[in-house]
């Protein structure tokens, strides 16, 4: 058996060497991004901020609604002038529905952050394994949550402005659909 590499094997060896070099460059670039810090510091901090936003808006909205209800109760005792006051109070109630939508959007962002965290953790482990050691200690990562099934697969949260269906669109679709047999 000849000990001299065949041309095809030599080319293959060169390609594999180039591939390994590119992988090493990619590993160094990924390491420079400090994925461990992203995972362990920045992402949790972002999550904490989102929690704080949600909590603060809930609290402030409840305060506004409580005050608006008291104003409304007082306005009802004033007769006709109270009607004009209550019209404005209704505008406050309507505007406060923003808080519910904001909370849902924050939840969507938080879910996106969790996905990023999983991806970064995976990168840390894979790139570390290619190098033959862990770049940074990567704790065991839980497998991604299974895709929602049934009714939960229909949950998308509030749509972005410009992409959302109007009430008129919803009404047109709703009226075009057959009535369910179990509806009274």
């Amino acid at each position, binding site marked *: 058996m000849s000990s001299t590499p065949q041309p095809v094997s030599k080319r293959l060896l060169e390609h594999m060497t180039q591939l390994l070099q590119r992988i090493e460059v990619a590993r160094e670039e990924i390491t420079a991004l400090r994925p461990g810090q992203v995972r362990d510091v920045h992402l949790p901090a972002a999550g904490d901020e989102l929690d704080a936003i949600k909590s603060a808006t809930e609290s402030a909205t409840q305060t506004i609604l409580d005050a608006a209800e008291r104003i409304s109760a007082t306005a009802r005792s004033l007769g006709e002038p109270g009607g004009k006051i209550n019209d404005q109070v209704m505008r406050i109630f*309507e505007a406060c529905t923003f808080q519910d939508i904001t909370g*849902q959007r924050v939840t969507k962002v938080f879910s996106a952050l969790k996905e990023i965290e999983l991806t970064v953790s995976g990168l840390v482990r894979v790139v570390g394994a290619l190098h033959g050691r862990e770049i940074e200690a990567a704790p065991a990562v839980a497998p991604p949550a299974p895709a929602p099934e049934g009714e939960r697969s229909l949950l*998308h949260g*509030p749509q972005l402005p410009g992409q959302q269906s109007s009430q008129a669109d919803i009404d047109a679709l709703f009226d075009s*659909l057959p009535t369910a047999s*179990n509806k*009274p």
Partner: protein
Amino acid sequence: MEPMTGLEFLKMVRATPTLKSVPFIMVTAEGKPENVIAAKAAGVSNYIVKPFNAVTLKQKISAVLGAF
């Protein structure tokens, strides 16, 4: 609306003999056609998408109670 979704709650209500006739308006941020279709198939009386205003709410309630 943890722990169950609005749609799950609607189905539960419609499956309960003493509640199945109760008018049910869904008020939700879920505005995709698939959501409306699923809700109507489950027996919702009407569907309001957030953000909404008081005029729309009153109209829907009047329509549902008028048909009740």
